[in-house]
């Protein structure tokens, strides 16, 4: 049911973990729905210098989290904001239809992390 690429990211997730002194943190979903993810970003010269994730959820939730960190790393904040759910799904060679909505939250988590960074920019965290 999953593409080989989804399974590969599920087996070997990239950038898994936390950033204790992150510049921005975004959490979306909730355990009630069965999917929840948190994205941590470190920003340097308006670029995403480091990015990590933690995810509770199905194979698709874990693979999309891993993929979004790969897509966003090194991008400017403006570029990263343009990464959408469909980009994540396409980079994974597609997702099962039933997973497109609930388990494809990774881009939202990235956007939430950027928003969090922009809100707190200039203030000491």
């Amino acid at each position, binding site marked *: 049911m999953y593409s080989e690429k989804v*399974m590969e990211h*599920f087996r070997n997730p990239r950038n898994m973990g936390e950033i204790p002194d992150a510049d921005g943190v975004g959490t979306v979903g909730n*355990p*009630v729905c*069965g999917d*929840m*993810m948190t994205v941590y970003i470190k920003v340097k010269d308006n670029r995403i210098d480091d990015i990590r994730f*933690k995810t*509770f959820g199905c194979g698709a939730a874990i693979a999309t989290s891993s993929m979004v960190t790969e897509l966003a790393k090194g991008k400017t904040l403006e570029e990263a904001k343009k990464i959408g759910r469909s980009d994540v799904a396409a980079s994974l060679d597609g997702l099962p239809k039933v997973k497109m909505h609930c388990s494809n939250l990774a881009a939202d988590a990235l956007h939430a992390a950027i928003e969090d960074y922009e809100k707190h920019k200039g203030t000491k965290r």
Partner: protein
Amino acid sequence: MDHAAGRPIDPRVLEAMLPYMKSLYGNPSSIHSFGQEARQAIEEARTKVAELINAESEESIIFTSGATESNNMAIKGFAHRNKNQGRHIITSSIEHMSILNPCKFLTTKGFTVTFLPVNQYGFVNLTSLEEELTSETILVSIMYANGEIGTIQPIKEISQIIHRKNAYLHVDATAANGQIPIDINNEGIDLLTVSSNDMSGPKGVGALYIKKGVRLEPLIHGGGQERALRSGTENLPGVVGLGKASETAKKEMPAESKPLKKLRDKLIKGLLDPVPHSFLNGPPTKRLPNNAAVRYSFIEGESILLDLDMKGVAASSGSACTAKTLEPSHVLRAIGLKHEEAHGSLLFTLGRQNTEEEVDYVIRIMPEIVKRLREMSPLTPEGLME
């Protein structure tokens, strides 16, 4: 270890069926000898199914296309035929969809249905059953055992309560037949659904036991086969296969049950003991001998399944049927699990092919799988306590 979702057909069953797919193609309704050969094979199968559940006569067995049809026939067929006696039906909240949905359908046809709650182990509350029974109640449908959490209902007590109030009892034995002995006489069952593929028989065939004197409206009208209760030329190889599966199960159940229970208990203990925040779903006793249902906090069932699958182990997350909707199973919700608890559930159903080595292997790999997924998870014991 996902035998509840689909189990391999027993080679002896296949062997018994093959002649009826090749040279023995007679129509059981024909007078000539080809037809009579087929008729005899069907009647022998009927006897074997009757013997499996200790039915008083083989005539009380009707062959169907499977447990779903049997359940539909029992619920809708009984309701339509007996609606002048009353229009109230009682069932439990952990039944299979092929009970729940016909019951819901009947509520659009002038019937009222009560869905009884169950306790944390999945047992039907006998006091509420007694309270809900009225003079309007014509039928109560309670499953013999639940395949997802293993709970075996106290059918005899249930039937006594129901019969005191002059209602009839239908029992869906899908998860139980071939696993534990069923005695429709001793337990006082009026209608009973028998499943074939749940006891290593072929798919696409099932049976309904109908006690003498219990009247049903047929769902399928036609040429009058199966005492005009289920028209259509009989599925000859399927019926022969179900007969053979019933015979084999009856013979081998007593010897298989004990080692299976031992294997189950070893698996449950091995899945839970080394892992903190892990729990058993369903009751510790009065449990199907093949059922090991557990849950792990902070992680999600499907990702556990994928990890197991990569290591060559097939299991199920709650219910194979609910995988389409992503909603946690109604059974796990009915026993009081929160959504997030239900999401972390995992079901192993053992079969006679499973060995102790296989159980040892699962026990060995599971703690690492849980550890890997928990490291990825933003949920923690501390977070849960907040």
